[in-house]
């Protein structure tokens, strides 16, 4: 079975790795985008360090979530703890498909650590929810207001401030909040921009003056968030992280991969992950992904598969191990082989 291509031509994996290495060697501005497991992220960061590359995620949602932490922080709760403890749940904005099982659990179970109180679920600008959730959720309507605008209205109305427009159905939510034992605001960078997330954190902070409340921040991309966390401990910075100057640097605008690619600063783009990608003119694209065919317009495509791996789990709120066997090479092993072939630039960490 073919597992590598140079352009559209079948190739042996070692030859494809050699070709990918040659592209990185001659690159003046390589970019690596990640949405992958822990080992592959470790290997990609080591490769970026050696190649003087930028590492980043393509997920706008992960970027919003990272910005929430770097700009203001906030109060958060583990999803599993929210299932057991939250008697009032407010879902704000759309959530990614990976969150649907969690939402169903919230809708279908009662909290066992809420002093005997049952759970009430509200939704605000949440789009299409699973049937089980839609059946029980009381809808707070913001009409045509954006999610960040709706979050601002929520906070203002709770503080009994005058607003130009109002949220329909807020009265019931307000009454539930006043009696709540533990409030969980469920949201994601998938459906909330940075302003909405920050506003919701302000709301959580307001609530905590009288009751307990916290936020379930469901990652827009589980693997993307995992990659961001690995980068944070490995390089000292969340994504994006650049090794262009020889040391790790973090600048969310300057090193944003999508900007580097769109504005033509990058000349080689190595993508590790399953999202569909297409290179603009003038960029050599290398893709490591679980694919059966070469990626259109990619210079190199290498089919990889997850073997025994560790990935971030939204439900667990942390990393979990996934046992698997596959015949295709893992992304981590391919990245390590490219690293071995790159000329020495500086000492790579173990």
């Amino acid at each position: 079975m073919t597992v590598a291509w140079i352009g559209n031509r079948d190739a042996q994996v070692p030859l494809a790795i050699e070709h990918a290495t040659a592209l990185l060697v001659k690159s003046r501005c390589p970019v690596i985008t990640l949405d992958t497991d822990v080992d592959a992220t470790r290997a990609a960061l080591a490769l970026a360090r050696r190649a003087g590359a930028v590492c980043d995620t393509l997920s706008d949602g992960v970027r919003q979530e990272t910005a929430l932490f770097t700009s203001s922080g906030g109060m958060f709760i583990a999803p599993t703890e929210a299932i057991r403890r939250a008697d009032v749940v407010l879902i704000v904005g759309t959530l990614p498909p990976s969150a649907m099982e969690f939402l169903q659990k919230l809708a279908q179970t009662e909290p066992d650590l809420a002093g005997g109180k049952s759970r009430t679920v509200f939704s605000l600008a949440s789009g299409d929810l699973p049937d089980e959730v839609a059946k029980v959720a009381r809808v707070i309507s913001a009409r045509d207001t954006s999610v960040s605008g709706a979050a601002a209205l929520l906070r203002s109305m709770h503080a009994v401030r005058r607003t130009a427009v109002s949220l329909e159905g807020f009265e019931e939510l307000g009454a539930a909040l006043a009696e709540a034992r533990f409030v969980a605001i469920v949201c994601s960078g998938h459906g909330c921009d940075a302003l909405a997330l920050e506003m919701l954190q302000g709301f959580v902070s307001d609530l905590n003056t009288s009751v307990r409340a916290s936020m379930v921040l469901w990652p827009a991309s589980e693997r993307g968030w995992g990659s961001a966390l690995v980068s944070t401990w490995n390089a000292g910075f969340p994504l994006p992280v650049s090794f262009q100057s020889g040391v790790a640097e973090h600048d969310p605008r300057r090193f944003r991969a999508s900007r580097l690619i769109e504005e033509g600063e990058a000349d080689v783009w190595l993508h590790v992950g399953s999202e569909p990608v297409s290179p603009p003119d003038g960029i050599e694209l290398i893709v490591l992904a679980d694919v059966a065919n070469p990626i259109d317009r990619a210079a190199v495509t290498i089919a990889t598969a997850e073997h025994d791996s560790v990935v971030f789990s939204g439900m667990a709120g942390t990393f979990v191990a996934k046992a698997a066997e596959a015949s295709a090479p893992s992304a981590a092993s391919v990245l390590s082989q490219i690293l071995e072939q790159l000329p020495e630039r500086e000492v790579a960490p173990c």
Partner: protein
Amino acid sequence: MLTLIKGGHVVDPASGRNGVGDVWIEDGRINAAPESREPDESFDASGCIVMAGAIDIHSHIGGGNVNTARLLLPEYHKAHLLRPNATPLSNLGWSTHQTGCLYAQMGFTTVVEPAMSPANALHTHLELADIPIIDRGTLAILGNDDFLLSLIRDNASPDMIEDYVAWTVASARALGVKTINAGGSAAFKENVRTFSFDDEVPSYGVSSRRIVKTLQTAVASLGIPHPLHVHCNNLGVPGSFETAATTMGAAEGVPMHLAHLQFYGYGTEGKRRFSSAAAQLAEIVNASPEITIDVGQVMFGQTVTISSDALRQFAARGSARPKKSVIYDGEGNGGGIVPFAYKNDYYGSLQWAVGLELFLLINDPWRVFFTTDHPNGAPFTAYPALFKLLMSREARREAMENLNPQALKHTTLGSLDREYSLEEVAIMTRAAPSKLLGLADRGHLGDGAVADVAVYRRDEDAERMFGAAELVFKNGELVVRQGEVVSLRPGKTLRVATQPDKAIVKKLEGYHQQRYGLSLDWFDFPDWAVGRDEPFGEVPCRT
């Protein structure tokens, strides 16, 4: 490979050596001087102090809360600004790579991360495995988790509680057990805002005292070498010395370790109602042989506080500098991240003095441990400056000239002349941690010990001497020369080999299915998940 470190001043309290001599290494272990064999390599250590590699028993170097601190403060990390040396936290050891290198450069070869949430154990071990050179260990947090609180509430048998503790330690690959504001985080989730030793957790009716005593008994019965590691209630609160004193009183002859005691050394005297109570605490420690403590010294400058004491960190949010923080309600403890700058104002000066008082007033260096509670009191890179303060009353006097005189009046520091000797430093940072953690293979230079050796160029200025080791060997391999890392080798994470009973695994499987609708596998992991060859080293339980 036979290696000779020749002619250094060997300070090894465990073997009683304190004089000029040689140290031999073969196959990663310390060896007796071989007869009629020449070394394959030899290092001249004349003019140097030779000690075992140092062991740090309490330093937050990896895990979910530590990583969240990194995430919160990228602007305070080196290389973000054009002048990295002027960037706050530039010396913090921010990435896992830097952490291993900076520790090794100071001659530290084993470091314990003292706060691992069992639910987040894999994340912690992934980070620890990425720290090069040094060996690591980590303590599993218990005492706010629903399973344990329910067992205590329901008067479960001591055997069942021991089985649960054994399972937690085994599955989390821990070196011991820590309890952090026992019951306090659980109470905080129920909207309780202050929680003391005899307060009860709502919904459970279980007091902090009962949780601590239950865990202390279980740890001792299981033969886990390190006694229960206790982060008391009321951290940082004026008058908190009473909480620490009460907690120590509850040890009742069974070993107990109190973490970062400095943060409890506060009385309520003076117009600010914030004074030193270090002398009272030191007196209790001196009279209680079952008690060990680490200090958690405060040093001045920017840092970030990282704690699984979610209740305390929530209360501290208002003092965040810069103004951002993270509070996390997790299974069990959760935690909080609050950046903070220690200034030489009244409060900072008093905290600094309280830590030094504890170091100098606790008589037995085998029972007081050298920590800054990194990074809570100060980054671990402040250690060399702290050694100097302990070894020189003149250095302390000079430092006090720049501090708040009103604060110093509320301490005894000005009257303390004690200076730590090299042997006392070696006890506190090598021999005693080895004994406290049950790491018989390190912390000394006796035959058969792991060849972790630190060689320092003798210098009247202890800060300069301990800041950059002349030579450091890890498992017999040269890793640092003249203060620079010359080899990046992988270390191991040390874990205690407890043997959980199968019945508790079945009970926990049912609990997780019922409460979370998730398999127990979500809360456990295979060794391969860490992604390193042989990531763990085993430490036996005491028989």
